[in-house]
């Protein structure tokens, strides 16, 4: 019990730390891809430190303040309901659907704050974000549904447990492919970074957020990275369970492997990001509702066929 509580307290700290670290590393990687030297790997920590140490933070009204607070609340809460490698955390108290809805709190709270800033760019950014969400949810939900139908459960912990023999990635490769495509948009990486496109809508929803607000958003983003990638890992990559022996040591190893998988997934997204231009929002929508959706439906039909017959 106490160990569990300790884990629950430790996880958020660790995850936000690792998230910032990964983001710093990814900046470096992007720079190398673009033939630059790039910032030091700890650059993200400096940025967050600076943002929190700003002498002045500019807000608009109390609704505006809700944005970053909700962003962190949503991400933190969601994180605790996702099995992380060897650690199940609270995933017995909420299943995949709970997680998918908890994930929305962050975005909706953010949208609320952004809207309250009164900046039209923020409004456009939120519109793009929601539209993009509708776009990628279509293939994503269908591919996740394939997994849920295949294993006939909605519990994340169960799904993870059932993949101990073979990853869902191998059984349902098409669904996994589509889910990874959707992951690109969940990370907000090019070609699907329309909501925060700096050159078009001046970073969209966060246009009015500076100082500590932005710092909190960066923390939330780093947790979000783990949540989104972790969800994918739990669903398709066997929850990063490398070792199936009981024992705290193996749990820690499993967790480290899980973290490694998060890093790998994020790197993949960043590499795509580094060489891609940006879609228009309607192009992105049509893209997601066309090929990924078709592939996802084929994957779903396959999963249904395998599970029913």
């Amino acid at each position: 019990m106490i160990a569990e509580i300790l884990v629950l307290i430790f996880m958020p700290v660790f995850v936000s730390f690792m998230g910032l670290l990964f983001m710093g590393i990814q900046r470096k990687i992007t720079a190398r891809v673009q033939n630059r030297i790039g910032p030091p790997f700890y650059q993200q920590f400096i940025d967050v430190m600076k943002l929190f140490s700003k002498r002045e933070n500019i807000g608009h009204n109390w609704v505006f303040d809700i944005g970053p607070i909700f962003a962190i609340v949503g991400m933190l809460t969601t994180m605790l309901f996702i099995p992380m490698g060897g650690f199940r955390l609270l995933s017995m108290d909420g299943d995949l659907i709970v997680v998918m809805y908890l994930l929305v709190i962050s975005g909706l709270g953010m949208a609320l704050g952004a809207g309250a800033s009164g900046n039209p760019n923020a409004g456009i950014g939120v519109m793009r974000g929601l539209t993009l969400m509708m776009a990628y949810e279509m293939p994503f939900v269908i591919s996740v549904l394939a997994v849920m139908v295949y294993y006939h459960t909605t519990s994340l912990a169960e799904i993870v447990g059932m993949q101990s023999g073979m990853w869902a990635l191998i059984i349902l490769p098409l669904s996994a492919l589509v889910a990874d495509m959707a992951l690109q948009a969940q990370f907000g990486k090019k070609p699907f970074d329309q909501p925060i496109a700096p050159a078009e809508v001046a970073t969209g929803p966060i246009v009015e957020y500076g100082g500590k607000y932005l710092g909190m958003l960066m923390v939330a983003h780093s947790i979000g990275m783990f949540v989104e990638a972790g969800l994918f890992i739990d669903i398709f990559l066997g929850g990063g369970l490398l070792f199936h022996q009981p024992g705290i040591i193996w749990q820690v190893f499993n967790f480290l492997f899980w973290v490694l998988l998060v890093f790998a997934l994020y790197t993949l997204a960043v590499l795509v990001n580094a060489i891609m231009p940006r879609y228009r929002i309607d192009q992105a929508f049509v893209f997601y509702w066309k090929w990924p959706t078709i592939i996802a439906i084929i994957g779903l039909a396959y999963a249904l066929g395998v599970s029913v017959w």
Partner: protein
Amino acid sequence: MLEFLNPMLRPEWMISLLFIGALLTYFAGKVSSALRTTFAIIFSVFVAFLVFLSGSRDVLTYWRPSASPMGFRFVLSINALSWFFALMISMVSALTIVYSAGFGKNTEKDNAFYGLNLLLMGAMLGVVFSGDMLSFFIFWEIMTLASYLLTTLAGKRAEKGALNYMIISTAGAYSILIGMTMIYTRFGTLEFSGLASVMGGADPMFLLITLSMLGIGFAVKAALAPFYVWAPPAYSEAPDSFTPVFSGALSKLGPYGFTLFMYGIVGLPALAKMGTFRGISDFGYIIALLGSITAVIATLYAIAQDDIKKLLAYSSISQLGYVMMGIGIGTSIGVAGGLYHALNHAIFKTTLFMGAGVLIYTTGSRKLSDMGGLGTKMPITFLTMLIAIFALAGIPMTGGFGSKWLLYEAAIDKKFVLIAPLAFIASVGAFLYSFRILQSAFLGQLPERLKGAKDPSPLITIPMLFFAGLLVLFGIAPGIPLGIIASVESYLGIPALNVSTYSVYLGANFGAYNAFTVMTVITLALLVALALFFIAKKSRKVGQTDTYMAGEVPEHHVDLYLHYSMNFYRPLERIFAPYLRNRLERLYDAFGSGYELISEGIRRIYTGDVQHYVYYVMVFLAVMILAGWWWL
């Protein structure tokens, strides 16, 4: 303490109180408007209280009319199912009456407005308390009439919507009438209790036809595709203080009818005789599929609306699609999800329509793009609508999540790969359109002419706050409503859902939803986030117009283009426009105008020329005589 009310906890008391109240209210209005409003509030709230007190105890009342050609008796009853719906209806109706008292003037004819509201409430209670089909049908018709009349009170703008509503509703009611008479001619009884024992034994074909006939009527009220065309104009054009009842309470009678007849009377085993698809009846599957299709279509239309009431109207259609989906699936989880969503929808859509009424009253416009920045000016309205929208979007911690969760679980459980994605997409669409309300009305820039906006009177805000509080309560303790629903399920003979106060466990290979854990975690996370927020330097508040506009100074043209709310989802609309252009309404219009053309032709039979008339008479006679000669 309240024992003295016990004799009044009977359906006939409640209904007749309301009917008498309707008359009294109407005539009190001739004396003084304050008296009228007080009467309306007292009667409605008192009856709602009676309904609440009566609980789901079984009460039966018979009344046999002395001379009737059909030889039946009228039965009114309270049971678990009817009490659940009655509670919902009376709560929404009574509080909406309180709410409308907060406005000085709701329509041109306020006496009729309050009177009809009470009449409608009585009729709706009558429908759910009916223990036989004839009283069910009579109350159903009274309900349709009262709601139609209430819609017409909005004046000229409601003309087309009200007419369409009445035509389609009447057609639906006639469909019920045919189904009802089919049942009566077959079984010779109209009482539900009697029917429940014999309907199960009927042959599947007969069941299919009767259920379809009844279902068409219920589907009209539930705004199920393809019968929803009346709903957007009727919901949006009805008086602003009536729409909450219209969408919140009245539309629930459709799902009630389905639940009653599919599970209460026909029963699961008999339904299964009609053919099953993965363990559920084909009939239920079709209902569920129609429900999910409705949900998606209506959502896409809702996204494109700029008129707040029209947006909410399409949203209602979409959410009712969810309800029908759950009821159609018909498993323990599905029915619980459907009924719970019906309850949630009643609460949050009532709140939203109430809020919409306040917004329209404050801004004098129904266009979302005419509003803006009201969040800080009208914090209570904002907060209540925010909670309602969270419930609509299904955010955890509000009631709406629990029901959507159950619905998804039900669909995934049965591996309905057609229904589940549709439901998911409709739900994502719900984020889109519900955020549009927030963004356009409450967030963003405050137009110059709304500088003086403020929260309305307590009469208006208290019902809204009450509903918002209920939503939060249900979000934290889903066991409260789900406990009632579980008793409804066991009344219907469906395996009851396993719930405790805070959590729902569906079984071994399902996930769980523990609202208490979610709430605890969210609270703790909130503490963390707040700590982070307040440890850092306090922020300086700047004006709403002090935003980054590439250095531009926007003060002078806030109203013009600083508030991004017109054509909010333009890119999306552009994609869907080609598909949404072929609206279902066109089909109905084509049918209507086609029939008008035919009737124009029929009218020409009466040429006005007496020679023709004589010719008709002679031909008739000749044909008759020839036929008589031939046959006899």
